[in-house]
């Protein structure tokens, strides 16, 4: 049946590979340029924790080149959704819609065996495309990740196993939608909606909390967070004197008012105010706490997110199997 699965899905396979190839070609000039700029930064010692003042120009050059890139890349998160919609959704839905299920399931193969082999074939296509995409994007983003750290949204989304995990989940949602709705276009729409409905909460609400975040207390106001490039900074909050009580926004505003009031008005100007405020706060015992996920947890987080995708995908496929076997017609 391998020939049959290929024959039915060869267009989608070629499309997927083409998309990735086009992406690679389009990315090439920008990527190469970025590699050069980053090499320069590295040479000047501008990468890593505390940037030098001299790095300003080089960083500007970097930001100018990478700004567009960093704007576009998040949009690529739709690619797994498209895989799900265009490969997964029509898999069963098209058979129902065209009536060809009566042809496909009156041959010598049971419908569950048919489904299993179709799934394996299309899954392979999806997985392969996802792997290729990951390779292209990792190569493309590696200079950016060197500068911004790979534990950022962009860095995390397009490296390692997470892209494949989302592609797999989108595919499974597509198959389930197609099996349940039995019409291709509605199934595609539901796939995109379903994918978004799961991805947003997972990425923005759950991901920061896969493991309890680490905290660095007692950071002075004048300095930075002291975090490494590849640490994932989740927040930097003011702490009351005494060391462990985090101030709310309102409370901190109150403190700033007090500071302002006690500072010599005549001696402050907009330019010097920030430094003076820092000095006042430090003098009065205020510190900061940095909340972050350490760089070492990167692969653990990758595994957890991919694992969530995998479990949901398996559940979706299991339901699809049940729907197909029930033979309501």
């Amino acid at each position, binding site marked *: 049946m391998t020939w049959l699965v290929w024959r039915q899905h060869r267009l989608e396979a070629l499309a997927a590979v083409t998309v990735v190839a086009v992406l690679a070609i389009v990315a090439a000039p920008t990527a190469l340029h970025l590699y050069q700029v980053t090499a320069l930064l590295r040479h000047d010692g501008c990468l890593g924790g505390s940037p030098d003042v001299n790095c300003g120009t080089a960083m500007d050059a970097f930001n100018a080149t990478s700004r567009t890139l960093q704007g576009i890349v998040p949009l690529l998160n739709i690619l797994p959704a498209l895989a799900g919609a265009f490969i997964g959704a029509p898999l069963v839905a098209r058979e129902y819609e065209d009536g060809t299920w*009566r042809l496909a399931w009156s041959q010598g*193969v049971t419908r569950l065996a048919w489904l299993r082999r179709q799934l394996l074939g299309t899954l392979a296509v999806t997985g392969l495309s996802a792997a290729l995409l990951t390779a292209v994007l990792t190569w493309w983003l590696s200079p950016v990740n060197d500068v911004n750290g790979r534990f950022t949204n962009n860095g995390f989304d397009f490296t390692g196993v997470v892209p494949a995990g989302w592609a797999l989940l989108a595919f499974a949602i597509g198959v389930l939608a197609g099996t349940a709705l039995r019409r291709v276009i509605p199934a595609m729409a539901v796939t995109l909606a379903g994918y978004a409905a799961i991805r947003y909460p997972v990425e923005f609400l759950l991901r920061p909390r896969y493991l309890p975040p680490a905290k660095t207390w007692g950071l002075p106001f004048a300095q930075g967070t002291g975090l490494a490039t590849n640490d994932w900074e989740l927040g930097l909050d003011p702490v009351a004197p005494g060391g462990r009580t985090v101030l709310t926004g309102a409370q901190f505003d109150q403190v700033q008012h007090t500071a302002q009031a006690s500072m010599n008005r005549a001696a402050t100007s907009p330019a010097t105010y920030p430094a003076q405020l820092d000095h006042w706060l430090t003098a009065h015992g205020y510190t900061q706490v940095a909340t972050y996920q350490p760089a070492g947890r990167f692969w653990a987080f990758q595994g957890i997110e991919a694992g969530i995708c995998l479990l949901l995908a398996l559940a979706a496929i299991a339901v699809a199997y049940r729907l197909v076997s029930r033979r309501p*017609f």
Partner: protein
Amino acid sequence: MTATADQAAAGQSAAAVESSGLGKRYGRTWALRDCTLSLPEGRVVALIGPNGAGKTTFLSLVMGLAEATEGTVLVDGHPAGGPGALARVAFMGQDHPLYKRFTVADHLRMGYELNAGFDLPWARARLADLDIPLRRPAGRLSGGQQAQVALTLALAKRARVILLDEPVASLDPIARREVMTVLMTRVAETGATVVFSSHVVAELERVCDYLVVMSRTQVQLAGATDDLIAAHARLIGPGRAATGAAGGDGDVPAGVAAVLERSASDAQTVLLARLSGPVADPRWEARPVTVEDIALGYMAAPGERYQPSPRLSVVSGSQS
């Protein structure tokens, strides 16, 4: 003769399709009810009835494309829809679906890959005979050509049981005759059982030797055509003038079990009747009826039911 004795000793011959109390409901509407049939092997079974009678539902259930709400159905002893049954049944649906973007050759390849024992040379030869180009996408074939491709796929499978839902409905009369000839030839070659549904009754006697009439989701009539022909007759007898009063059901001779159709005038009365024995009444003349007559008769009398149990002697066919 010895063949019959052997068969009788071994018990009933395996039925090609055996259903027991089979029923199917869609939502709250029943499409088939209480269907108990035992279709013998090697027969050409005609499934006759008006649209909505349950023919398509029955065929879908036997193929395993639909799941029974109640009752069971076996194909060659295997539960319908299971791998054993799927290997033994071929099917052509009413709308003979094909993959529009597959070429004819692609369809043959699919048949070859999904079915053990698919007769690829036979299929290619048949399509060549019909001048159907192998490289054309199925979507660009005419309706009649699509029907032929679908039928070829079904017949090439070398199945034990071949189910055809209205196989000749979309064909012109010449193509119709040609298709039935090919079907009969294939049966002669493979010894398969054919069950085909039709809402057209003409030319039944030529091809079918087992008749099932369905109406309003239930089986009305089922039996070998030889048995049915022997059990029915057209009776011609005295008209209203001869019997005097024009009363009600009128005169019915002894030996008649049921009257399917009645046509009375002053001069003579004609009955289409099912017999329980010979008609001895000298005023009535009995003439033979055809399979078409019987099918039409039961379709016109939806309340009538007749399902004789098969005579074992007919199975080995030693006498008629």
